[in-house]
């Protein structure tokens, strides 16, 4: 980086244009090498914990604590995975089924409710709209901690605690963040498109399903992904509302696993990777949607 700054010293300025260009491109080459070096070093720092997780998960018990630590396990013990998955308090298939129930139903819920609300906020005029929208924005800034206890009391009085209802039902009534995201996206779709359809006698429901939603596929995919990720990774929700071990989600199961297998890092890492793996695979195939979605919220926000 300092090489680049050097090319602006007065001495260099007086030199011929050709010399200047040559020194500049030399400067940029060095600058680029430095940037790549930092980026690669940072990438290693970010990925190494996961690599280490994988490495530990494949070690035999005596090697986990071996000094100095070895990156490549020798021998490789694949059996750690079946051992972790067959552990009595980590019934993987049940946990997976529970997690998928929670995740998929919630995602369905927000996909049904949020586009409707976003359409109402962006393309329909109704009394109180701006006030309700302001309140919606405010809920995004309100710390969830303050509503935690009263929300629990509400669901308890409904007799819903101990089940998935408190986790799933709200999704069918929308979410502030997703409505905001979709509204921003809907606003960017030209009004003329729907006005022309109104003149042709199309109903708003038709306009929404035939014009707006198809154009907003990217934003809707983002909402689905975010909700899927949020539910899959949710810990506090199931921790509060799910008390029966048979209803545990993967996150809750993993927490219980850590309680039971303290210091068996080989098995803990194997179980942790099993819980993380599906999300990593999902991210691998959908990274563009993820990144674009965050970009959308960050900039417009």
């Amino acid at each position: 980086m300092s090489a680049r700054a050097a090319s602006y010293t007065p001495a260099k300025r007086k030199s011929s244009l050709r010399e200047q260009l040559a020194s500049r491109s030399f400067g940029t080459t060095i600058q680029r090498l430095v940037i790549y070096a930092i980026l690669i070093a940072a990438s290693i720092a970010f990925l190494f914990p996961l690599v280490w997780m994988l490495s530990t998960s494949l070690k035999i018990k005596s090697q986990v604590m071996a000094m100095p630590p070895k990156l490549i396990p020798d021998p490789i013990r694949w059996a750690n995975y079946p051992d972790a998955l067959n552990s009595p308090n980590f019934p993987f298939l049940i946990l997976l089924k529970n997690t998928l129930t929670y995740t998929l139903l919630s995602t369905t819920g927000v996909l049904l409710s949020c586009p409707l609300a976003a359409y109402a906020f962006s393309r329909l005029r109704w009394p109180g709209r701006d006030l309700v929208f302001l309140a919606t924005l405010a809920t995004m800034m309100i710390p969830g901690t303050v509503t935690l206890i009263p929300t629990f009391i509400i669901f308890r009085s409904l007799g819903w605690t101990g089940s998935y209802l408190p986790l799933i039902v709200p999704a069918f009534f929308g979410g502030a963040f997703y409505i905001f995201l979709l509204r921003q996206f809907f606003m960017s779709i030209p009004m003329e498109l729907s006005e022309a359809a109104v003149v042709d006698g199309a109903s708003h429901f038709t306009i929404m399903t035939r014009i707006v939603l198809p154009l907003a596929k990217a934003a809707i995919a983002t909402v689905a992904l975010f909700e899927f990720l949020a539910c899959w990774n949710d810990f506090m929700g199931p921790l509060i509302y799910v008390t029966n071990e048979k209803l545990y989600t993967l996150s809750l199961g993993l927490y219980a696993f850590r309680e039971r297998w303290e210091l068996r890092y080989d098995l803990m890492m194997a179980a942790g990777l099993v819980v993380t793996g599906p999300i990593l695979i999902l991210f691998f195939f959908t990274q563009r949607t993820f990144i674009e979605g965050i970009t959308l919220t960050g900039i417009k926000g």
Partner: protein
Amino acid sequence: MSRAVVPRLTLASGLRRRGAREALLGVLFALPWIIRLISLHIYPMLAAFYYSFTRYGMVQAPQWIGLRNYATIFGRDKLPLQAFYNSIYYSIGAVPLQLALGLFLAILLVQRIHGLSFFRSVFFIPTVVPAVASSILWLWLLNSRIGLVNEVLTHIGLPRIQWLSSPRWVKPAFILMSLWGIGWDTVIFVAGLQNISRHLYEAAEMDGAGLWARFRNVTLPMLSPTIFFNLVMGTIGSLQVFGPAFVILRGAGGGGPQNAALFYVLYIFRQGFSYFEMGYASALAVLIFLFILLLTALVFRSSAVWVYYEGTR
């Protein structure tokens, strides 16, 4: 003349009818959300204030005790202040570091280099790892005897650190963990940086502005709305840190060595869901809510001075 009035009237009434139908439809479409907004956001917020003045153990109806919960928080119970201090410490330690590192990586990413999207995805990956999984991973990495972090430290000649068992280091340990998740900030910063017009940099370069001058006079002001966004969201989030602390400290009952990692929300959780002191927990929640509200308002007020919005006044 009367002929001209009639169609105008029907047009007007037609429009009015259409407007009424649109209004009905608007309310209808937004209705599920309005129901949730009232019942799961607005009402619980108000209810938290009410419960904070009561003693409520969930068995009997809430019993009005006035300001007694608050008196306990500021008097007899020493832990709320400790927990508040811990959360503030964590927030002040983590947020500026997250912003600085996130911005630094983002600036490198938007230089004309190959592999922007590759590196961006790599930095983002840790943020999708479930909190419980990343917590047990860091439990292992920060193990004081054989953890990888201490292994690296001794390798470069530094002493081993009792990350999770010394009151001095347990908060820095959580700050360190939080830095693994800066990919989210980085992605937002990259988007903000890509929005800055190249011409501004070219003009600055013409004027002989060096690397630092360009950063100081172009990047920072143009990026200030994005920095502001990340600052507000980062602060609100960090003051409510819960998952990693709960997992690593084995539940809300633990608070780390000498309660040095008893974060505020952890303490609320303990009072509410371990002791079922719903009134007391609500009072604690109300206080952190008011604090965050005040802080956000201050940041918003200050933003008039340092946040530059293009195209406004």
